[in-house]
């Protein structure tokens, strides 16, 4: 059941453009999907390593700007040296954007993981603010507050297949869906591997994790690189889909949106950011008929507080627990490690394997 559910969900979402003709709704879903990707990347840091990164929008925005500038081209002079870049295909921009954001993840990880807790949070916010101010003031490169318009949409294909340019909403919808599915699989493999276990161990009890030989810096930086790159990829998708970006992309509220998606859905679970992303990606559609943006934000804020008070683990672990209780009455413990229930099942599978082998002590 657990294994097939993601596939059912994927199949369902693959049918959406077939019956949903309203372009506005489709657009909302594409943007929600892009933010979902960003939330999934944030979840890796916030959920699996337990590091509250509040500068996540920086990776997103850097990915967007790098990808946009790569495909638009630019010309600027640094200390009298003229640098001119001719436009490259958008797809290369997308990759470079992800790489640039991953590099920033590495740098921020190296710097910020020397400090933890409150310091880490503040460093990440500061980083995002510096990037925002640079994007605002480095007018020669970024056009500053006047925005970068005319970003070309992504073009897919090779010389021998022909090319297709993703102008339409449905095309972009499928592109984002593919990336979400891909990211889901990669994150699943990562967090259920020794890498992911090391990250979870650091989150649960750093002293103990270190005592069994887990390097704090190595695994947190690794998570930051991957998380940054994925957020950068989401930013690149955003830039080529919306086709115009300005420094407002670095707004702290964008980070807050990602954080709310993750904690509402369930941090440290694979499905959490997806569920949270759907709820908060689609909420504006529902709410816009009734209230203005301020009230909407107030509701988000209130919900964030309520979640922390009432459902601190988030929706997905709560559903999982309810499900487990129904399936196995008498089990009292919930899966606090979140999303690890499947892993535990495999653990039991391994037991029969191990019991069949000799009980000899390893050295």
């Amino acid at each position: 059941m657990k294994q097939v559910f993601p596939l059912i969900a994927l199949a369902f979402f693959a049918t959406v453009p077939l019956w949903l003709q309203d372009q506005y709704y489709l657009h909302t879903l594409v943007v929600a999907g892009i933010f979902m990707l960003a939330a999934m990347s944030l979840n890796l840091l916030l959920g699996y390593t337990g590091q509250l990164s509040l500068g996540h929008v920086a990776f997103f925005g850097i990915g967007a700007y790098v990808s946009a500038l790569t495909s638009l081209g630019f010309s600027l002079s640094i200390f009298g040296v003229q640098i001119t870049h001719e436009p490259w295909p958008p797809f290369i921009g997308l990759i470079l954007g992800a790489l640039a954001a991953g590099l920033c993840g590495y740098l921020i990880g190296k710097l910020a993981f020397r400090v933890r807790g409150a310091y880490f949070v503040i460093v990440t916010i500061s980083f995002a603010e510096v990037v925002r101010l640079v994007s605002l003031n480095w007018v020669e490169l970024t056009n500053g507050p006047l925005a970068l318009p005319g970003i070309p949409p992504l073009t897919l294909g090779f010389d021998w297949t022909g090319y297709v340019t993703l102008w339409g909403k449905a095309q972009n919808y499928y592109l984002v869906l593919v990336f979400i599915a891909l990211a889901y699989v990669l994150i699943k493999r990562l967090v259920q591997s020794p890498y992911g276990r090391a990250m979870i161990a650091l989150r649960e009890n750093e002293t103990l994790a270190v005592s069994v030989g887990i390097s704090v810096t190595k695994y947190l930086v690794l998570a930051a690189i991957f998380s940054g790159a994925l957020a950068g990829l989401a930013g690149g998708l955003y830039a080529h889909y919306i086709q115009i970006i300005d420094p407002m992309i670095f707004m702290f509220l964008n980070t807050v949106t990602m954080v709310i998606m993750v904690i509402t859905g369930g941090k440290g679970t694979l499905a959490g950011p997806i569920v949270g992303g759907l709820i908060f990606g689609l909420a504006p559609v529902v709410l816009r008929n009734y209230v203005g943006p301020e009230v909407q934000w107030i509701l988000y804020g209130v919900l964030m507080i309520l979640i922390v008070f009432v459902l601190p683990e988030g929706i997905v672990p709560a559903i999982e627990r309810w499900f487990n209780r129904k399936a196995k009455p008498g089990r009292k413990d919930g899966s606090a490690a979140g999303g690890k229930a499947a892993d535990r099942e495999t653990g039991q599978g391994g037991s029969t394997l191990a019991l069949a082998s000799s009980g000899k002590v390893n050295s």
Partner: protein
Amino acid sequence: MDQLLQHLVNTVIMGGTYALLGIGLTLIFGIMRIVNFTHGELYAFGAYMMYFFATIIGMNFFVSIAFAIAAGMVLGAIIEFTLLRPKRGADIDTTMLIMIGAWIVMQNLEHLSWGGIAKSISSPLPEAPLVIGPVSVSWLRVMVLVIALVLIAATYVVINRTKLGKAMRATFQDSNTAALMGININAIYTMTFGFGSALAAAAGALLGPVFVVTPTMGDLASLKAFAIVILGGLGNVTGAAIGGFILAFAEEIGAGYISSGYRDAMGFVIIIIVLLFKPTGLFARAERVG
């Protein structure tokens, strides 16, 4: 040279309010271990209260400042009582999320109740600036500095000379031991948060008339307060006071000699540099953050 002198004067004047902002935040962090994301909103709240009392109601300018500070204190105490007290003992990330939620709610409430248009508060002080040699400074700014310094001094008296301050310091050292000694920790926390909020509101009430009042003014204030507090070391009151002046100086120099667009970036650059080379702040003793 004259220009540098002018920069130094500006530094001192802004530094006073920055110090207020920083002291408020660092007190709350040091004693309660809470990263207060609503700090900037309390700053904005102070400014709006100032606008309300001085401009809308038309009360005396100085009485309005006092009222705005009192309002900030009450609001801070309410926030502590309703949002933080039930989550006493929760980890720092949990309270941070709560405070982020509260911050969003507060900012948008401000937007909703006052509108997005900037408000200005007129002051009764003479328009003509005070000119001393090559340096000129408005009387309003001089007043802001004087009041800020008085409030900083008052904070020192409260912390070092009163029974409340003694209890706060004991709680800062070790809240469990303080509780065993018969100190009402809940009351101390509420008062600390109220006190810190009052300082933020004071900074807002003082700077409101100097600049303009907008719903989003709190964002930068929060971030600057973080910069100041990191500079001084989390929980270090003297460090925050000095940090306020250092940030003001860096901003003046950044704006004056690099580009005015980067004025607000100086705080973040400082944060990153300080954390790179001396993560515990410039004036820190041992820090207990986990």
